[in-house]
Structure formats: C-alpha cells, structure tokens
C-alpha cells in the first residue's frame, strides 16, 4: 500500500528534551512549564490549565482558542513539560495539522522552542535522493508521486532484493540496502529534523531517508505530520500503526476534521476508472498466463499461503500494539481467503465479473441511491458475487500483485481503487451510502455517470484513533458550537472549553449589515438572490467600503456561480468601474495557478498603497489556508451565508443519517456548517493581537440568534446589539470610526498587564481570577 504515501507524508519531527533555553518558568497546577517568551497571554495560561486537566484525566478534549493567541506554543510547552515530568504517562506527542504551510509554521515554533532535536521530511524529496543511486532515474519528475512510489517499489520490494542475492546484476536501491544493513541499530542523534535535515542526514550516511523516517517515528518524542497519516486507513496502517498507546494526539485546525474523515473513507468511481481498471485486469491476466508457463510453482505457493490464512496480521493484532484498520475489521483476520478467489485465475475472473457489474450499474439514466446491503443483494442476484469474497478483494489483490512480482504498481491505481471499494462496501453495512448519478446536476445533457460510495459517519474513520490513544486533543480557532463535534465524531471528551481573546483594545469589529440605504433587506437567500435590489445593495456596500478601508479588502461569496452572477451584474450597473477608482479588483477562480497569481498581485497592490479587493469564495482555497495579516486584510466582507449546496444527494443522505443516528436536525447541521465556514472566512483577517480588522457579515440572517449563537465566542463577545441589522451608511460610519481608532499608535507597553503578562503579573490574585473567566466550559 505504498502509493499515496508520498503524497501525504509531509513532515515528521523528533525531539529529545534537553538543553532548554527558556525564559519563563510557569507553575501550571503543580507542573513546571517552560515557556520560551518573556511574556504570556492570559488565555494561554488558561488554555494550559485546561490542557493539563485533560492529560491528567487521560481523556479527550475539545478546545477553542482564537488564532493568533499562541495555541501551538501553549500546546507544545505544556505537553513537553508533561512528558518530562511524567515520562511513563505520556511518551509521545503526535501533532497533526492540515496543510503544508501550517505544518511548517508548527515546525518553526518548535525551532524557537527547543535547541536540540531530530528528524524529517517531505517524502517526495526524500525519494529524490533515493534515485540518485540509479542513474537512469535521476531526472524523474517528482511531480508524479505515484510514479516515484512505483519506481521505489521496483527497487526495494522484497522479491527484488531476494533476486539481487542470486543475481547481482538486478538493480537495487543502495540507499535502502545500506539502511537495512545498519540503520536500525544506530541511534539517530537527538535534534529537530525537517525535510531538508533528514535529506542531508540520509545523504551523509547513505541511508534512505524515507525508510529512516518511518523507523524513526517510533523513537521520536514529537512527531508533526498531516491528518491523513492517522485518519486515512490506507496510510495509517503503514505509517502510524506502531505508535504507542500513551501518545497524546493533537489535531490542530480541526474545524474540518469530519470532512477529512469522510473523504478518507469515500470512493468515487467514474466510467474512466472502470476503463482503466479493465486494462489492468487484462494485464493481470496476461501476466498470470505467462507466469503459469514459466513458474507455476510460485502461484501454487501463493495458493497454499492463502489457505493458511492471514496469520501474521492476526498475531500482531492480539498484542494491541497496532492501530486497528477499518478496512480490515476484526473478523476478517480469523478467516482464510475464501476458496472462490484463491487461485489467481479465479480471482481475475471474479474481478472481471465485478467490473462488468459496475459498468452495467453506471449505464443508467436516473439517479439511484441505495444502502450497502441493498447493493450486495443486487450484486448477488445479478452476477452471483457473495459478500465474503468481496471483503477479501483488497487483500487478495495485494497478494496477487506481490506474487506476480509486478514491480511498477503505479499503473494499478484503478484496480486498487475498485478493490478498496469492494472491501469497504461489503464490510460496512451502516454509515455508508451508494449514489449513482448519470449526469451532473449542472449539465443534465452530458452523460457522465459517477458512482459515489460515500461515507456519512466521520466517527468510523476516527474511532480507532480515539480508542487507541489515551488523549486526543481537538483544537482550532473556530469550533463553535462546541457540543456538536463530540456528537458527530462520537466520543466523550473530558474537557470542552472555549477561550476568548483578552485585548488591550478592541481590535476586531464585527458588524452585521442587513439592509441597504434603500431599506431593502440584503440576503443571499435563494428566493431573493437574483433580485436586482439585493445585488445593487451588495455592490454599494463594497463600493462604500472600498472608499474607507485602507489597503486590502477580502470579500467572500457563497459560491463561484453566485460570485460570477453578481460580478457580471455589477459590471452592467457600472459599480465595478466605481470600485476600481478606489481599489484594484482580483478574483479567485477554480484554477489554482490563476488564483495564486491573483493573490500575489493582490498582496503587491496592498503593499505599495494602491489598495486592492480580493473576491473569493467561502470553502475555496483562499478561505481555508491563506492568512491576511495586517494590511493584507483590513476588512473582510462575507456576502451571504455560506450554506453548502443543499441539493447535493450526498449531503442529503448525510443529513438524513445524522438525524437518524445522532439526533442532529438537518437545519442545525446546515447552520453549523455554514457558520463555521463564515467564521473561518472572517477569521482570516485577525491573526494576532496587534492586528485589527473589520468583519462585515452582509446578510440579515446573521442577526438571528440561531446564527449569531453559533459564531465563536471571541467574535460573539464583540458583537453588540447595536451592531446588528445595520444599513450601509451606518456601517460606513462605524467602520470609519473604528479604523481611525485603530490607527492610533499602539505599543507593547499598552498591552502589558492587560493582555500580556509577566510572571509577577500572572501570579497576582485578581489576575488569576480574571484568567478563570477566560475559559468557558461548554
């Protein structure tokens, strides 16, 4: 299961705790914590208290703290201190973040934090070294992760190495051989290792950094990597299965964790996948017949191994040291591969039948939605495929590929995907749904059938993580309402808390604009979104704001289509022209290259005083990963409530499931989802205490209690009754006033004692009382 791995594995860090050069020594509830700065924010102290409680109770926690208040450093310093104080209770910190820049940010913080540390990196880069040993591959484009995997596999697979013993002309990877020979015995020197460090280390020693990293994870004190290594069963099996039970797992920026879980368990099959799969099957068949002529013993040997059953995996399981893999549920291991697919030809025949069946299913003209048992029943009736062999599909394919010694597995992604689907669909009867759509909703005339095998229950993927590790911390700047995450992820946290931002000056100004100057309600509600007056009012709002807000404004729309429509009619009404007198306009598109270009130019325009507006889409690339610090985002305008596309069948099925299983009403979930994205969008502008920005919610529906109540506490706190349902000119006046206030000189001394504490200030009685109010238990 090596493919994908190099796609996802991003960074690993290893820290040995010594030589701490730290400035502040805090006493958190009896634990000595080293803090690397001279000052501490009150909310950081409070956060650490809650975290300590969670670790003491050996339970899970959900903690919300605004971005820019030093979540990461608080987490690191407390957990590291805990590790140091109770080395037997907590052995390892596994820090998961979402995107590469975020992971790198964490890394930098660790650098600040600790002087002396260990390993690792980008596996794609790691592979580069891998190849330098083999000249003809040295210029392989790294972009194609799968190919790299395939080539790597062709040099390091066990049978290749076995062949090498008998036939030295068979190329093998020197780096791996070297590592295999000595690497495991030699301890890695303590230190922090990121991608490049590991690469260097590997090059010096002549060891393969990829395998070195996989091995080193076991010994590291801190590991930083992407979510997928823990959540995606296909990769977690390889990377994370040997992590000790006493690890603390932190999911940072976890407001979208349910979607990550769902994505990792879902499969989409198009006609193209099936066609490619067809070719794969043919290749397999040819290979089998060839091998049969030359080396029939090999196939017989495999057969007998399968009769024996999957004993090895079973042994590993009993010791409880491995992460249970959802694709391999408990019962499967106690049985041998069923007789009907044990021989290679039978299995290929079986795959063919299965493929034909899927093709037939995709040849429909209406939408079909069915549950997994229904699908299984249907497949049994139509092509006589039982549930049991389906379940072994993935495992059997793996074994076959190994036996056939197909080194380059890159081409077999299609058939692997199909086999995953087969295993999943036959394993889980609950929590999944199958939807076959003959065409996309937006283009009903073009036939493009897709089979969605969609997971509706995020708790399935995350359950092994919660079950296995003693403490799992879920944290982010926007997790409100806090109670919904434990429900949809199905776990029981010991602490659920939300922290506010203590501020020396009110640096955020949330405003809800509900009406235009003509008193027409502004809303992106479906019935009125095409309304001329609404569009004009939205245009006027942007125009007025562009005249009073300096430098950068980021405006978010609910969807690309809506944005296109609005911008088109603004153009016709001449609003765009007026806006362009004040600021330049940039637009995010679905094309990543175009968007990053726009973003770059946007930042340039903010930098040199021309001023710019970035029109983008909630849930888009800009809304998720890009920060608009200081002048890059002095105002964020959220046009409308970013509800997800409610007509999607997958969403409908999920809502239904949530209602039946978790008693979460459809509307609650939709609102929750919309508000977390809205909060995420507006939160882009405030990235710290010295930063300031306007947050404008341009939809009258935000003023309702059910929407407002779902915003994070640190935004809600500043949303007074006076800033609800404003008109455009009221907004302009308030904005102007706010921006002037914020432009007054603001120094660090002004923050001291209020939102920035020294050790003495922290220890004073009334400050401790104030700190107690910062955390709000949900």
């Amino acid at each position: 299961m090596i493919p994908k791995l190099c796609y996802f594995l991003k960074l690993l860090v290893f820290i040995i705790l010594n030589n701490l050069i730290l400035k502040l020594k805090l006493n958190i509830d009896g634990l000595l914590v080293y803090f690397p700065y001279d000052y501490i924010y009150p909310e950081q102290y409070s956060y650490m208290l809650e975290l300590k409680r969670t670790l003491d109770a050996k339970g899970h926690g959900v903690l919300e703290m605004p971005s820019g208040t030093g979540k990461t450093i608080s987490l690191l310093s407390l957990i590291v201190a805990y590790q140091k104080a109770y080395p037997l209770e907590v052995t390892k910190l596994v820090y998961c973040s979402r995107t590469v820049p975020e992971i790198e940010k964490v890394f930098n913080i660790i650098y600040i934090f600790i002087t002396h540390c260990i390993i690792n990196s980008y596996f794609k880069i790691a592979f580069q070294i891998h190849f330098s040993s083999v000249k003809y591959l040295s210029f392989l484009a790294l972009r194609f992760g799968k190919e790299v995997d395939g080539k790597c596999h062709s040099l390091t697979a066990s049978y290749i190495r076995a062949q090498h013993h008998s036939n030295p002309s068979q190329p093998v990877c020197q780096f791996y051989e070297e590592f295999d020979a000595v690497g495991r015995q030699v301890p890695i020197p303590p230190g922090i290792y990121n991608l490049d460090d590991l690469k260097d280390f590997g090059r010096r020693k002549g060891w393969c950094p990829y395998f070195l990293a996989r091995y080193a994870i076991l010994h590291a004190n801190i590991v930083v990597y992407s979510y997928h290594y823990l959540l995606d069963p296909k990769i977690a099996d390889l990377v994370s299965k040997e992590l000790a039970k006493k690890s603390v797992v932190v999911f940072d920026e976890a407001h979208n964790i349910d979607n990550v879980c769902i994505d990792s368990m879902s499969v989409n099959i198009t006609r193209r996948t099936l066609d490619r799969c067809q070719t794969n099957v043919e290749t397999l068949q040819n290979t089998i017949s060839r091998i049969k002529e030359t080396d029939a013993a090999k196939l017989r040997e495999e057969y007998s191994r399968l009769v024996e059953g999957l004993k090895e995996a079973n042994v590993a399981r009993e010791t409880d040291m491995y992460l249970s893999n959802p694709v391999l549920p408990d019962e499967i291991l106690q049985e041998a591969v069923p007789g009907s697919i044990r021989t290679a030809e039978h299995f290929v025949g079986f795959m063919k039948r299965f493929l034909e069946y899927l093709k037939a299913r995709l040849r429909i003209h209406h939408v079909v939605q069915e549950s997994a048992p229904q699908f299984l029943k249907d497949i049994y009736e139509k092509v006589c495929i039982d549930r049991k062999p389906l379940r072994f599909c993935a495992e059997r394919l793996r074994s076959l590929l190994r036996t056939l010694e197909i080194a380059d597995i890159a081409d077999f992604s299609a058939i692997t995907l199909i086999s995953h689907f087969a295993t999943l669909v036959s394993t889980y009867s609950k929590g999944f749904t199958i939807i076959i759509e003959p065409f996309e909703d937006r283009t009903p005339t073009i036939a493009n059938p897709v089979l969605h095998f969609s997971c509706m229950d995020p708790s399935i993927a995350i359950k092994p993580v919660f079950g296995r590790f003693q403490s799992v911390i879920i944290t982010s700047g926007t997790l409100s309402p806090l109670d919904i995450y434990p429900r949809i992820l199905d776990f029981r946290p010991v602490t659920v808390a939300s922290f506010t931002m203590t501020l020396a000056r009110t640096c955020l100004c949330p405003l809800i604009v509900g009406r235009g100057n003509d008193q027409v309600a502004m809303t992106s509600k479906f019935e009125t979104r095409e309304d001329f007056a609404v569009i004009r009012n939205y245009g006027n709002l942007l125009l007025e704001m562009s005249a009073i807000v300096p430098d950068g404004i980021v405006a978010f729309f609910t969807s690309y289509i809506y944005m296109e429509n609005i911008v088109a009619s603004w153009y016709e009404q001449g609003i765009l022209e007026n806006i362009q007198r004040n600021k330049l306009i940039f637009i995010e598109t679905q094309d990543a290259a175009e968007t990053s270009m726009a973003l770059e130019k946007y930042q340039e325009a903010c930098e040199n005083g021309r001023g710019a507006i970035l029109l983008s889409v909630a849930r888009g690339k800009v809304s998720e990963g890009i920060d608009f610090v200081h002048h890059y985002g002095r105002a964020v305008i959220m046009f409308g409530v970013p509800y997800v596309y409610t007509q999607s069948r997958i969403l409908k099925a999920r809502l239904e499931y949530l209602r039946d299983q978790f008693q979460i009403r459809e509307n609650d979930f939709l609102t929750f989802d919309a508000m977390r994205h809205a909060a995420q969008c507006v939160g882009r502008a405030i990235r710290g205490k010295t930063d300031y920005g306007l947050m404008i919610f341009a939809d009258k529906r935000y003023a309702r209690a059910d929407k407002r109540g779902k915003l994070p506490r640190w935004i809600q706190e500043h949303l007074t009754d006076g800033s609800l349902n404003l008109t455009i000119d009221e907004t302009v006046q308030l904005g102007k006033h706010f921006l002037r206030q914020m432009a007054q000189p603001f120094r660090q001394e002004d923050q001291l004692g209020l939102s920035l504490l020294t050790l003495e200030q922290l220890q004073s009685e009334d400050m401790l009382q104030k700190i107690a109010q910062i955390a709000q238990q949900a």
Partner: protein
Amino acid sequence: MDEEPERAKRWEGGYERTWEVLKEDESGSLKATVEDILFQAKRKRVFESHGQVRLGMMRHLFVIIDSSRSMEDHDLKPNRLTSTLKLMEYFVEEYFDQNPISQIGIITTKNKRAEKLTDLAGNPKKHTAALKKAVDSTCVGEPSLYNSLNLAMQTLKHMPAHTSKEILVVFSSLTTCDPANIYELIKALNGLKIRVSVIGLSAEVRVCTILTRETGGSYNVILDESHFKELLMLHVKPPPASSSSECSLIRMGFPQHVIASMSDQDAKPSFSMSHLDSAGEPELTLGGYYCPQCRAKYTELPVECKVCGLTLVSAPHLARSFHHLFPLEAFQETPLESYEGERFCEACQGELKDKSVFTCLACKKVFCVECDLFIHDTLHCCPSCMQTDRTS
C-alpha cells in the same frame, strides 16, 4: 481659528453613536479606551522632549497637501480641504513663530500629478496667501505620493547638510497612483536623510507606515478636527537633529531697521528687493532693513538676501527659538492617593481630582494634569518658580 468650527445641521452629519462616548468602562481593564492610551502618549511627549538633544533648528520643510477626490469628504467641517487649509494657515504662522530661521514650501497633489503651490521660502505671508487661494480649487482624481515626494526631493536634495530636511504629508486618500516603485524612492529619501512624516485623515495606510518608519518620521491618523490640529502642532517643534548631520557655522546678518522721516530731503522712496519674486505691484517705501553686506533693502524679516544670499534675521527671532534648546524639566508624577498636602493646583487653584498629580522638581509645587500640559506646551517655564525668583 479660535472659534468653534461651524456645525452642520444634524441631518447633514454622518451617523453617530453619541451614547457610546458616555459609556462607562466597568471592567476597567478589558476595554482600555483609545483616549486613555492617547493621553498617555501626550504625557510621554513631554518627557521625550527633555534632555539636552541637538535640534535641527534650521528647517527646510515641504508640506504636501493631498487635494484628491477624497478631500471633498464632509467628515471634517465643512469639508476636508477647507478645514485642512485653514489649519495649515495657522500652522504656517506658528511654524515661523517658533522656527524663525526656517523655510517652508507647499506642494499639492491631485489627478495623479503633483504641483508646487509655493516654493521653499521664509516668508509666511506668501504661503498664507497661496493657501487662501487654494480653497477654491476643485478636488479631483487620485493623489500620487511618488510624484509629490519626488518633487519635494528634487528641491531638498540641494539643501546643505546642516539643515534639517523634512517633508510633511497630509494624506487624505487611501490609495496612491504611482508611476514607479515607491520603495525605491523611499530608499533614496532615506539616503538623502530627508525625514518624512505623514498625517492621515482617514485610516492607516501601509505604504505610509513604511515610508515614515524608514525615513524616521512619525505617522499619525486624526480622530477629529481638534486631534488634527494637535498633530499638526507637533510638527511645529524642531525635530532632534540626526547625529550624523554636520555642524557648521552659518553667516547671518542682523540688519538694522532704518526709518527715514518724510521731512528728510535726502531720503528717497525705494523698492524692497522682495518684490522680485512676488507677482503683485511693487510698493515704494521709505524705510526698511538694509543687508549689512550688500545694502539691499527689505521690508520684512526673516529673509534670505536676494543679492548676496545672506540670511537676514533679527535677534528676537533667534531668542524665540531658545526655549526649544532649554526646555522645562518634566514634573514628577505621583498618584493622588499617595500625595499628602494641599489638594489644589498651584496654577489654576482648582481641586485636584485626577488620578495623579504633578510636582515641579525645583519649587515642589503641585499641578493638575491640564496645567502640567499647559506649562510644558505653551508657557515653557514654571509659574511658581518664576514668582519665587522675583521675590528672592
């Protein structure tokens, strides 16, 4: 200038939330108001100005006034342009009052261009007249920070190294339309040791922050009209000279005022040399100041001699800028609770009610906050010390 700015009708004004100003700050900590911080800053200025620092007494200052579209905004009454020009007139007067041997020039920028309203000169009258005339000009287009800074730089770069070269930008717009990369220009300004300060009329603009930070100037954004005036007045005081600027002796002339009586037959009415660059009709006068070097006649001081280039000043002018060099020492601040003694201010005789009281280090008399500021900003001497001096 002392009158209240004329208030527009309520309905003409913008949306205001007057009740919020009155809001009590109950928590006392979470919402330290901006005014409080501002007050602290004000106090700080008093402290900063003290100590023996070398001041750039001979200043060459270019004031750049933004006259773009945004100057028509009505948030200053009657509009930003009129209000700014009015304050500028006052500023020019004050400036020459405090810096008699300095010069000033005015540049306006609109429609992506910059033009010189007045050249660098030491005569307040000409500037005030130009400012008065500018009130009627229309505000159009966008300003160009680059063009105006460049224009000012072209003149300032020829000024001798011992003078303090400054640019003050009154920037109303939030955008600037530049023909080239402004960061290159900032580097050039920095190299020429030209100090650029900005007063923003609407909000903090990034490029101004960088501009002022790089060139060592100050950047402030106004809250309202009175704050605007206050910020302008900050620029009246000469800034500390950078340590690297040269020291040199300058030749100055102190011409005597010669008054010829009408009865004197020898006296002939003559033209003042200053008419050379003024467009108005030259006037014949009898008396005047005569340059000690070349005997050219001038009716007003201070002035640079048109013929021999000598700086002509009068002694009182120099004396007036004296207090900048020997400022009054800051008073000691003590909280009211810990202060024991009579609870009234020495100067205004009012009761001491504020959080802290201020004690003069020389005579040990106490003052309230307002009087403390007044003494340091305006009087430049302690009234009670003066009294004791006289009696003793």
